[in-house]
Each structure stands twice: as C-alpha cells, then as structure tokens.
C-alpha cells in the first residue's frame, strides 16, 4: 500500500473501528478477565479467585432453572413464530385483494419496543382474559401470568405476535423468488396443492428458513425486555430467563464477577448453538 492510501484507509475505517473496539471488543476481553475475579461493584478492589465463580455457577440452581426455561421457551417460540410467519406469508401472497394493507397490519407489533409490548400483554392477559373468561365461563382464561405455565405461554404468545410479521416479510421475499415457470410446470403436470407446497415451495424457500430460524433463535435466547415487563420473572422467579438472571446477579446481589462468569458461559453457548444451526441449515439447503 502507498503511504497516502494507507492514511486514507485509517481515516475511513478508524472512527467505526474505534467505537467498535471500545464498546464491544475490549469489554468482551475484560469480561473474560473479570469472570475470574471477586468483583462486586461496591468495594473498589478485585482479587483473582481462579475458577471459583465458574464453580459457583455450576452449583447455582436458579441459573440452571433460568437456562432450562430459556431453552424450552426458545424452542417453542422458534417453532411458533416461524410457523405463523410462514402461514401469513402464504396467505398474503395467495393473490387475495388488499394484501398490502394486511401485510402492514401483521407487521405493526414489530415496530414497537419489547418493553411496551410486554406491558400491553400484561393488561390483556391479566384483565381482558379474566373478563372474557368470566363472561364466557371459560376457566382456563382466568388467572394468567399467576403461574409458571401461563407465564411461559404468555411469553410465547407475546413473542409470536411480535415477530411473526417480521418472519412473514422474510418468507414473502423467499416465496417471490420462486420462478413462475416452475409453478406453471407443476400445474401442467397436475400436481396437487399439497404436492406443490411439499416438493417445490418448501425446498425453494429453505434459505429464508435459515435466516428466519437464526433471527428467532438469537432473539429468543437473549430475551430481556419482554420478560421484564410481562412477568418480571415471576411468580417466584419461575419465569426468569438467562438474561434477567445475569442482570439480577449483577445488580440485585452485587456479584458482578459471578454475573460475568454466567455471561461468558452464555456467550459460548449462544455461539455454539447459532453456529451449529447455521451449519445444519446450510447443509440441508444443499441437499434439498
């Protein structure tokens, strides 16, 4: 590289790289270091404590519970969000009238922040469900969010409602990429609707599924805002997810070193899960 162009290289890349290093790279590295210390955020000093924090994490029952809850939630939410999103995409691309307005309606929840959506559904579940249940005499509509099970399904419903519109957009673009000629050929050969869906549409939309599953996966695992405003982790911490568990460990109990050890484990698990999913999906795409 010439001297002049090297200068320009740093002028163009420098500011973004600087912000990125300070905000993400350095804190990640420091975080790994802190996870081996007794950092508590109150007294200034921090001593190296070796693997003690990691040992405490392994003995932390609440953390296991949060992890298990998060994993169950993520699997359920990924399936329901992508299924609903894909069905909506099929519906609005089926040539019905006014589909653009309808698309717009399905997408609205996505624009609004998770915190606000959580409060909206807290009202729906606790007040509107109760009223509806009482009026129609349906018992299971009453007392939502007061148990761990209804808290779980409350979160799944909220997230499906929020993200299905986003997935719909992704699947619409996947569906539109299918060449008309393929569909015409299938129609001439007398393929049934179900055959077309199974043998043509699904395989050709597979790349969109890779994107959709990846996005829902990382969103579900990292969920915090909705968890906080819908259930607040309750009742009795039974709907607390990993992100909230880390937050509470750090700021409620002032165990920042321990929280950081949990965060490092969280990072590793998330990276492994995401990379595995990408790998499997990509392999499937080729095979199909």
């Amino acid at each position, binding site marked *: *590289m010439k001297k002049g*162009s090297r200068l*320009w*290289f740093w002028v*163009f890349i420098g*500011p*973004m790289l600087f*912000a*990125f290093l*300070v*905000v*993400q*790279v*350095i*804190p*990640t590295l420091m*975080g790994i270091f*802190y996870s081996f210390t007794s950092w508590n955020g109150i007294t200034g000093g921090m001593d190296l404590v070796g693997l003690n924090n990691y040992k405490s994490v392994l003995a932390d029952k609440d953390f296991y519970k949060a992890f298990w809850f998060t994993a169950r939630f993520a699997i359920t939410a990924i399936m329901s969000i992508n299924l609903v999103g894909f069905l909506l995409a099929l*519906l609005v691309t089926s*040539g019905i*009238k006014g*589909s653009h307005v309808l698309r*717009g*309606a*399905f997408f*609205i*929840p996505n*624009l*609004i*922040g998770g*915190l*606000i959506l959580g*409060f909206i*559904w807290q*009202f*729906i579940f606790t*007040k*509107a469900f109760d*009223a*509806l249940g009482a009026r129609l005499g349906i018992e299971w509509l009453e007392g939502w969010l007061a148990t761990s099970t209804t808290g779980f399904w409350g979160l799944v419903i909220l997230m499906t*409602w929020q993200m299905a*519109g986003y997935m719909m*957009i*992704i699947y619409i*673009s996947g569906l539109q990429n299918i060449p008309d000629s393929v569909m015409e050929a299938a129609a001439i050969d007398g393929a049934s609707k179900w055959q077309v869906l199974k043998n043509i549409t699904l395989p050709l939309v597979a790349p969109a599924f890779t*994107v959709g599953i990846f996005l829902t996966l*990382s969103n579900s*695992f*990292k969920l*915090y*805002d909705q968890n*906080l405003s819908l259930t607040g982790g309750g009742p009795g911490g039974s709907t607390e997810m990993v*992100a909230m568990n880390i*937050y509470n460990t750090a700021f409620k109990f002032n165990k920042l070193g321990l929280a*950081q050890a949990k*965060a*490092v484990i*969280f*990072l590793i698990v*998330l990276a492994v899960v995401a990379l595995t999913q990408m790998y499997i999906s990509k392999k499937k795409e080729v095979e199909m």
Partner: protein
Amino acid sequence: MVEKKSNKILLTLITLFSAVLFLLPFYIVLINSFKTQKGFLLDVLGLPGQYFTLNNYPEAFKKLDFISSFTNSLYITVIAVSLLLILGSMAAWMLVRTKTKLSMFIFMMFSTAMLIPFQSVMLPLVRIMGKLNLLNPVGIIFMYLGFGAPLTIMLYHGFVKSVPVEIEEAAIIDGCGKFMTFWRVVFPLLKPISVTVSILQAMWIWNDFLLPQLTINRPEWQTIPLKMFYFFGQFAKRWDLGLAGLVLAMLPIVLFYIAMQKYIIKGVMQGSIK
C-alpha cells in the same frame, strides 16, 4: 372456476380474521385508555360508554414527561443513525476496495461480533464508560455506534460489492481525491441500502431499553422506554394512566410507520436477505 372463487373468498376471510386478531390487543388498550378507573374495573371488554373520559391523557403526558422523553429519544436516535450511515458507509466502502489481509481481518472481526450477546459486555462496558465520564447522551450515542457497527458494515459491504469500480476510477482520473470520490460519486449510489440501514437501526435504537437503563442516571435524560418503565413501577395499579401512557408511547412510531410503510417493509426485506 366456481370452486376457485370460493377458495379465494375463504382465504380472504381467514387473512382478514387473522389481521383483526393481530390488531385486537391494540384495540383493547385503546378503548380502555378512554375509561375512568371505575369504568374499566367494571368492564374491560366493552366501549367506554358512560365512563368515557379524556383525563387520562393529559395526566399520563405530564407524568411521562412526554416532551422531554420524546426529545431525548429523537435526539439520540437521529444523531446515532446519521453517524452510523456516514461512518459505516465510509468504513464498508474502504474495506471492500482495499484488498489486503488486514482489511479482510477487520471485516471478519465485525461479522463475528454479531454473535456477542449484550449481556456479556454490559458490565465491563458500563465500568469503562463510567471511568470516561460518558454515562450521558453523548456516551450513549457512542455506544450505539459500537453496537450498530457490525450490521451496518455488513449491509453496506454486501451492497458496495455490486457497485462497479469503473465509476470511481473515472472520478479519480478527473482529479477527485478519495474523500470527494466517496461523497460525490459513491455515497449517492448507496441510497437504497442507506434507507435499509437507517430503518433497521432507528427501530432498534428508538425501542432499546436495557442500554439506557444501565447508562442513564438522570431523569432529564431518560428516553421513552426508560420513562415508561419507571412510570409503571410507580403507578403499578393505575392502568387507566398506564394505558394512556402506552398509547402515547406508541403514537410516534405508528404515525411514522403509516407515512413510511413502503420503505420500512422494503428495508426489512433487503436487510434480511444479506
């Protein structure tokens, strides 16, 4: 033919029914925000009727400090998104056009960072920013640059690759410097992806809650989601005020969406393909 037509009617009905179902929560929140406290304790599902009131709104407006929190949200979002557009497009262009190992390494670093969850950097980050005296709106904007960098650069990177390099070479022969070439020739060509980037990043920054919660400690700097959170903490049993507050908080986004729907849907579509 007859069968096909009735099929279409059925599909339309199913879609319409789903759309109504999707909008129902908003409807319920909206009607109840116009009821007195007694009104909605008596009946959540019906229209306000004799319990109609407009009083919830002025009170929620005041309690939410709406003008201040709206201004804070707007200020942070607009400046952070503008800087992401300017600095992100410059960096991505340079990374595409420079074919060295260093440049490839930097790009790799940006793309791997997409996997880092916020929770694993938040504690050290707050400590660093505190030491630098940057736990304020300026610091928040800086942090959004750092967190927004990976996606911004990846989106621009993908787009720049499709811009023919000959146009830039012609400009350089005409005596334009690197800086001028970028701003006069390249940046205008990036407009479609710039729209996508600004929509995706604005949606995220406007709605973000955890970062402001961790880094803003003065009431006069609070953004809308942050204010909303404290508001609910304070008036937990006052749904009449809470619902009006929720409607107020959603209003700017919904209006913006109605005005920009075409671009927003297109932007999300573009952003997901990459």
